[in-house]
């Protein structure tokens, strides 16, 4: 059993007014501090490589998509936001997605897809703004998800760095 010992109040504390003045002094000091809010549309968000925005598909310099439609991200996705239909291709990797949809009404930006991807094909971009007037408009198809590797460079480097210990032994 815990016995809570209540602190005996001093006379000044019982009188309440000195304590009120103490509280007022604190709030007065706060008034002259710089606001900690951001004027959002005018002042853009601070974006670093740690920013986990919406997932995007990496596209190589030669305009080929890295994804081989293995479905790992689809399975890893806790919100069932990803839908993939695979298909064959003449390229060396033999398979590529015919359809790759991410439903951003479901996506929770957890980054599990990025972690699950064995081909370094999907990354959390720094794009965070999401708005549309229809539900359909928020289901992104493959064309809207494609981003050149150069645009995702910072995040790719970061992910490689934190996952280095098991990626260096990968056969790809």
């Amino acid at each position, binding site marked *: 059993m815990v016995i809570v010992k209540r602190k005996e109040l001093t006379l000044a504390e019982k009188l309440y007014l000195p304590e009120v003045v103490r509280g007022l002094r604190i709030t007065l000091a706060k*008034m*002259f501090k710089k606001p900690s809010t951001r004027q959002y549309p005018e002042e853009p968000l601070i974006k670093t490589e740690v920013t986990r925005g919406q997932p995007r598909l990496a596209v190589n310099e030669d305009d080929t998509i890295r994804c081989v439609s293995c479905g790992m991200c689809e399975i890893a996705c806790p919100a069932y936001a990803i839908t993939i239909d695979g298909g064959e291709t003449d390229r060396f990797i033999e398979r590529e997605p015919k359809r790759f949809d991410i439903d951003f009404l479901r996506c929770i930006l957890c980054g599990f897809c990025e972690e699950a991807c064995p081909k370094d094909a999907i990354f959390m971009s720094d794009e965070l703004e999401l708005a549309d007037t229809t539900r359909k408009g928020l289901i992104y198809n493959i064309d809207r998800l494609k981003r050149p590797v150069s645009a995702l460079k910072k995040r790719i480097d970061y992910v490689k760095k934190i996952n280095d210990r098991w990626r260096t032994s990968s056969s790809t």
Partner: protein
Amino acid sequence: MTVLLASLIKVVVIFGAMMSAAGLATLAERKVSAWIQHRIGPNRVGPFGALQPLADGVKFIFKEEFVPESATRWLFILAPAISAMAALMSVAVIPFGGLIGEIDGTPIYLSIADLDIGALWIVAIGGLGIYGVILGGWASNSKYSLFGGLRASAQMISYELSLLLCILAIAAMSDTLNLRDIVELQNSNTLLGFLPAWNIFYQPLAFVLFVVCTFAETNRHPFDFAECESELVGGFHTEYSSMKFALFFIGEYCAMIVMACLTVTLFLGGYSVPFWEDAPWYIGLGAFVVKAAFFMFLFLWVRWSLPRFRYDQLMDLGWKVFLPLALANVLLTGLFILL
């Protein structure tokens, strides 16, 4: 005739000033709250959000005027009007400044009415404001509104006693209820040679009691049981919308302004400037505005610093602490006057 015209001009000017001051006070409330919470506050309408009260007003006018089906209709409509009217009427006797000039030998002072019972007038008309709150709460026919109204009236009545006793101490000391005479008395001499002869130095206890009572009297934090968002939704104005809702707020802010003005008049020498006995009226007006603005700021400052009291604690404080203290203060004052 010209005297009448001068009075009319004073009425219009002071009424307009009160309304715009109430608007400014709403803006100040939002700005001060923002600063205290490290925010920026309204800044979209006009430079630094200065036109926000106008935008609010336009919004209120265009909102739907909603009257609940079970409400007592005419009381429901009457209540906000009473609330705003009481607050606006009580400003009539506040002396904002000294003598402006003379017309046909009649001195023109910067206050609407120079009543001999000025302090009494403010308390009497200000007391009518309770009707706005309780009628609004009752006529809405909603349990939360009724709670809010009842609490507000109980609170205002119990704190009005202490408020009155503080005014009584001042009135006894100055031997008058005329607010202008009270100010002139504070203006005319100095205390111990280095302090202005303001009543705050003669009656420090009454000053503290009075300021706390004004908070309770105007239903402001930490005594805003009439609104009490966390327990009573919105209190007495839960069912109100549109301009009727706005009227309650104009009433509240005007009451705050009146109380700030009254505090300044009774305790801080009103429009008197320390050590400048015959200052011109515009300097006096400036001094008055500065002093009153400080008390307005105090209202906002306290609101965003302190949590709300518990209701029973509030009543305990009012009846068991404030009333005896105020009574003792009056007794002591009387004793000193007799000696």
